[in-house]
């Protein structure tokens, strides 16, 4: 199939107010067809109110080998997290 059709990634918003979430992929010739097939393949039980399709080759992704430089520097900033601050019990639901 790959010789014939492109791979698209499918993202679905299941309810208004929620983010689009990746659900899988499918093959189609163009974005319009991909959108129609996404409807037939991934929303047979009314799972969605909105669909995105993205040509898989258009996705730029971080690499495993980047991990150290990408994410580790973010590990040493515990002060960004609410749990970093010990407050008295009376106000701890802040």
């Amino acid at each position, binding site marked *: *199939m790959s010789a*014939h*059709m492109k791979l698209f990634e499918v993202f679905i918003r299941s309810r208004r107010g929620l983010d689009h979430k990746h659900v899988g992929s*499918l*093959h*189609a*010739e163009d974005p*319009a*067809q991909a959108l*129609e*097939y996404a409807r*037939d*393949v991934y929303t*047979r039980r009314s799972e969605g109110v909105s669909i995105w399709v993205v040509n898989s080759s258009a996705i730029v992704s971080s690499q495993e080998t980047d991990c150290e430089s990408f994410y580790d520097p973010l590990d040493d900033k515990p002060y960004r997290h609410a749990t970093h601050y010990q407050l008295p019990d009376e106000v701890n639901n802040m």
Partner: protein
Amino acid sequence: MSAMTTQEATRQYAIRLGDDALILGHRLSEWCSNAPFLEEDLALTNVALDFIGRARMFYSYAAELSGDGRSEDSFAYQRDCREFTNLLMHELPRGDFAFTMARQYLIDEYSLAFMEQMLSSTDPTLAAIAAKAVKESRYHLRRSRDWVLRLGDGTEESHQRMQTAINELWGYNAELFEMDTLEADLAGQGIAVDTTALRQPWSAAVQATLAEATLAVPETDWSVRGGRQGLHTESLGHLLSELQFIQRAYPGLEW
């Protein structure tokens, strides 16, 4: 028509529309596991499910109007060929993918216009069925029109196959727009759709699509009719013998 009550005429009308939907839905369901690729298998099945669902709504209404304990299944499973009143185009064997899509396109273009008219039927049940069917048909038409374009303007082979399909279907068009006294009478009361009025816009839309798909409008002079009178091609009998096998072999049971 004088002898027939409006209720009886409406009942027969609902059966006709149910027959159209069931027989086409059945033909589409034959594609399941046979489509050119998996995505299309799922899509075709959705369309089949929509048409069978539509048949069930029309038959249920006919059963209600019959008021004699008949159910949707009585109409689908306990009538013979001569009692089926679907328009002939619906029953033709599925053929290749081009034939299935060409037929689907011609019917979707018709069906959408038809259901849009039925939205304003004075019969509230028919109007309600139309409200659901219109939404489905919009999607069906988008799909089948795209396929006519892709196959018509694809490769030489697909073009050839699509043109052949259109040619083979063309003579079954006329029947879509003809009304007998039953339908004319109901249309007069605002219950049924006046299909004669659909012909011109349908032709215009179809011709535009064929032109865009680089397909020729057939210059055929043949036309076949008879479905509404229970006169069918021989393929319907085979379809029914499959459809009705269990109910015929083991009559009167729950399944």
